[in-house]
């Protein structure tokens, strides 16, 4: 009896939580397709970005490189302006290797956040389950994560918003130059005070 009451309460509680959609659920229809993430997808392409990271009132700047080193792997490195490596991670869709991380950043919570962010940034394609043509939005569901990809009116991927079932976690916004190359991008978190800005610089 007690279990039944508990189960009913849990059911009521869950029913009270609304599944998260950035622009409401009504415009979505099911679809089976793929959206390409063109950024960091060219094999061996090397582009350099100046990174500015804001974390709970602290600011960290440096140089950022994300290179697709094989079909499955991206190597992601941040160095300080003075040159020392802050972190160096190899990421693929389902695994990662931490090649080096500076002692001060070597915390599970920091590493997991960075890995999750950069996985979403560099994943070459997203399998799409739902689309919202009114807002040019595509929803990909993978491993309990929901990825909302927005395509602008030029047909270019302009943002990826990452959410759990019930709330938004972080979003990545892209800006391209006249040649369609990624000029700057921003990773903005909602639950924690973490924002990262990246601007392309000559290399």
């Amino acid at each position, binding site marked *: 009896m007690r279990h039944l009451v508990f189960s009913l309460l849990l059911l009521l509680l869950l029913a009270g939580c609304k599944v998260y959609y950035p622009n409401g659920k009504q415009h979505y229809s099911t679809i089976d397709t793929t959206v390409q993430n063109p950024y960091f997808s060219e094999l*061996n392409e*090397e582009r*350099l970005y*100046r990174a*500015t990271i804001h974390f709970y009132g602290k*600011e960290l*700047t440096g*140089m950022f*490189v994300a*290179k697709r*080193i094989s079909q499955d792997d991206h*190597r992601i*490195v941040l*160095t300080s*302006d*003075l*040159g*020392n*490596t802050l972190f*160096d991670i190899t990421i693929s869709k389902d695994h990662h290797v931490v*090649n*080096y991380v*500076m*002692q*001060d950043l070597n915390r599970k919570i920091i590493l997991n956040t960075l890995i999750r962010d950069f996985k979403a940034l560099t994943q070459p394609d997203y399998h799409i389950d739902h689309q919202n043509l009114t807002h040019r939005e595509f929803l990909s569901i993978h491993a309990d994560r929901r990825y909302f990809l927005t395509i602008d009116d030029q047909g270019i991927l302009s943002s990826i918003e990452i959410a759990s079932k019930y709330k938004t976690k972080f979003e990545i916004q892209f800006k391209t130059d006249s040649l369609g190359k990624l000029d700057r991008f921003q990773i903005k978190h909602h639950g924690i005070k973490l924002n990262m800005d990246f601007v392309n*610089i*000559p*290399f």
Partner: protein
Amino acid sequence: MKTKLIILIVSIFHMTLAKAQETAMSGAEITSFKQTVISEAQKIKTLKTDFIQYKHLDFLSKEITSSGSMLLKNPDKLLWKYNTPIQYGILFKDNKVLVNDQGKKNKVDLGNNKKFEKINKMIIGSISGDLFAANDFTITFHKNRNQRIAKLSPKTKDLSAYIQTIILYFNDQQSTVSEVQLIEPSKDYTKIVFKNKQINQPISDASFSF
């Protein structure tokens, strides 16, 4: 296949040759070299130099290059100013660190960032030669045809977590550093090459500001 074999033989030969060029200094050479460097470092009141910084990451096809100038006024003023690829300056003055990031100025309190201070002291020390006097490193001395070379390995885990070896190159008969190579535990490294060095030329205090 044949080409690969030739390349392999040439590279092995090249590596052997390069190694052969670098020999360990004798005891007497070490003593005299250390004495000269330390006494010359103590005479440095000001130092002005341009530099090019090369960050080597093994998986990249080329190095990340930055350049700028450095001003040092003993005992406690140091300014690193990067002009390319971005305007960025870091100023050490009166136990404070100030950063100018493309016009945006931030104050960094050293009290909150002891490790940052340590790394930078290490960089300053490696330029002036002061590192030889410090007891934090195991040092070996080498030479080749044109350079005298000091290789420093941190004794403490605290430092070796950041830097595995610092290599200081002294060109010709100079007693101040011409090139610094900071090798990280991952074997990636930062190389800083100094040029247009000017020692003990007057530098006004006003130069140490943004």
